[in-house]
């Protein structure tokens, strides 16, 4: 197996993905959850880029990665704006306590 082959990139991106997943599921702090989301997005972008370079040999994969990055940034802006709004209202950013949508 070639070290810089596609397989290693996939492994790396998978690790990133799992980490991000675990973070999203288990963290109590909203910002923590958000960090997880960023990790997941990152892994996806990395995956696209890897495939574009190593398998498809075209630029379109990078295109997608670019868009992912842009969207991730936009989403970050919105998410943190929401966070600030919530913080202003509830003065608490523990996800377990924000249960108004509960049954």
């Amino acid at each position: 197996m070639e070290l810089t082959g596609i397989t290693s990139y996939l492994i790396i991106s998978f690790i990133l993905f799992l980490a991000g997943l675990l973070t999203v599921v288990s963290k109590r702090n909203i910002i923590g959850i958000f960090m997880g989301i960023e990790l997941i997005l990152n892994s996806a972008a990395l995956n696209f880029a890897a495939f574009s370079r190593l398998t498809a040999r075209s630029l379109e994969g990078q295109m997608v990665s670019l868009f992912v990055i842009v969207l991730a940034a936009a989403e970050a802006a919105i998410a943190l704006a929401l966070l600030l709004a919530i913080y202003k209202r509830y003065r608490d950013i523990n996800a377990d306590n924000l249960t108004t949508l509960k049954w």
Partner: protein
Amino acid sequence: MKSFLESYGFLIVLFPLLGAMVNGLFGRRLQAKFGEKLIGWVASGAILFSFLLSVAAFITVTREDGRAIMNHVYTWLEAGSLKVEVTFLFDPLSTLMLLIITGIGFLIHVYSTAYMKGDHGFWRYFSYLNLFVFSMLVLVLGENALLLFVGWEGVGLCSYLLIGFWFHEKANTTAANKAFIVNRVGDFGFIVGLFLLYWLLSAAAGPLAEGKSILSFSFLTEHAGLIKDSTLFGVSAVTIICLCLFVGATGKSAQIPLYVWLPDAMAGPTPVSALIHAATMVTAGVYMIGRLNFLFSMSSTALAVIAVIGAATALFAATMGCLQNDIKKVLAYSTVSQLGYMFLAMGVGAFSAGLFHVMTHAFFKACMFLGAGSVILGMHHEQDIRKMGGLRKYMPRTFATFGLATIAIMGIPPFSGFFSKDEILWQAYSSEHGHPVLWLAGFLTAGITAFYMSRLVFLTFFGENRRRQAAHDEPHVEHETHGHHDAHAIKESPAAITTPLMILAFFSITAGLAGVPEALGGSNRIAEFLSPVLGHHVPSGEHNPLEYVLMVASIGAALAGVGLSYFFYIYRPGFPAALAEKFKLFYKLVYNKYYVDEIYGAVFVSGTKALSKGLAFFDKYAVDLVVNLSGLAVKTQARIVGWFDARFVDGAVNFVADSTLALGDNLRKVQTGRVQAYILVLLLVVALGIVVKIILV
């Protein structure tokens, strides 16, 4: 004339009916506007018309040598094999009855105009009376048994209406009910007899009866012999039929055991008693047997029964008549007794003798009843003979006619009663169905008849007027209330009353000429006249000397009776009372009519009431119990089903609803509101899905 009868004979029947309708529908107004006279004219006129036509019919039939003339009016019923026509039959028997009915009927109508004067229901009375004559004419003129029965029922109805004419008195209505109900019992027998006759004859005749009216007399006379040998329940069918028909006759003609209504029927106006219960209706039974003589001749058993009952009734009723104190009741029992004679005659096969006695009895009995009516009027509605007496001074015409009629009934020659009664007695002795015992009964009855009839005459017309005597002994109290009319004056009745009396008395004397037997030199014309219907009368060449002996014997019995009565009531007036004291029990028994009414009341009336009470009880507690129980069962079942439904069915439905709610309740807890939980679930499911997919592939 014959063709006239054939086309218009029904007019005889129609006129009384029209009279009844006019008086019935418009009588009240007519009486109010024009007075009683008009009513009387209408009614009597109708009967007069019928009488004149009857005379014409009689003459025509005589000229035809007794062949029947039929007037077909219309076909009444035609249902399957049953065919009934409305046809009127004019033959010797029916025209004879016609003359009696319309003739005596007319006289009684005239009499009634005077008797019923001032009565509030004058118009009603005449309407009923006309209706009665109509029914009786239908009975007599009917060409078939069903039409006869129509008339039969009709006269029963009119009898009821007229007995209860003064219906404001309860006693009168009770008597009317009694008459009708007892009659009905007899009619039941009659109907059963008719049914049996029709059934058996149509079965026996088979194709012969095709399209013909089975119950018409012409068919019956021709083919009745077909059922001569049929049996029903092992007994000769003819006997059963005849006995059933005879039961009807006992009801209508007041024989044992259904005679009890006739004495009570005296509650009606006296002319009614004269017409219906002496001259006409009560003879319907005799007429019926005469009409169906061929049928009765086929069963000697039935004839024997008839004869025995006739004789027994004659004797029985005569004894009861001896002790009655109401003038009309005496005559009533006398009627029952004389009817017994007629049935005795029919029972021994002497049909023409029986009908001869019908004729003579009609004359003298009607005369006597009308005379009694005259007496009652004269005595200002007093009917107890113990309070009468010496009326021959005050009411000579009444006395004369009554006396003559009495002599006739006693059977003293040459009055009519002698010939008819004697013929019966001779036939009772000598005819092939006869028996000396029957003769003996008739003989004794003759003696007793003479006794009580002369008793009646003596007590009523002879001696001193006992009421006057009683009145003299007491001070006058209510003089002023009577106004100009002296309450104690007894005077002769008006001409409208006495004239019919005289006419009837005349015929009581002379009617005997119609049936003078050969033994005495006559030709027994009536028997000959009726022979086309009643069977041939064979004139026997030689005369049994016994006949003369018996004749003399009966005259002797009559005279003995008169003598005894004279002794009791004129010679030694106190004797009867003393005798009554000595034989108190016997006296009481006879005086109370052997308690027959009481026995009937206890057995039949109370029995029926008790039965109905018992049945009502049964219905209430047994039948209703069953019904209520079943109702209860249904209710209980409904309750069980309801419980079941509420518990299980509803339970199932509720369970579904409740479980849905519970499921919902529990499932909503999934909505924790925490996104991470959702993501977790999502992750797990996806992972699971992928793993499963990989494994499966």
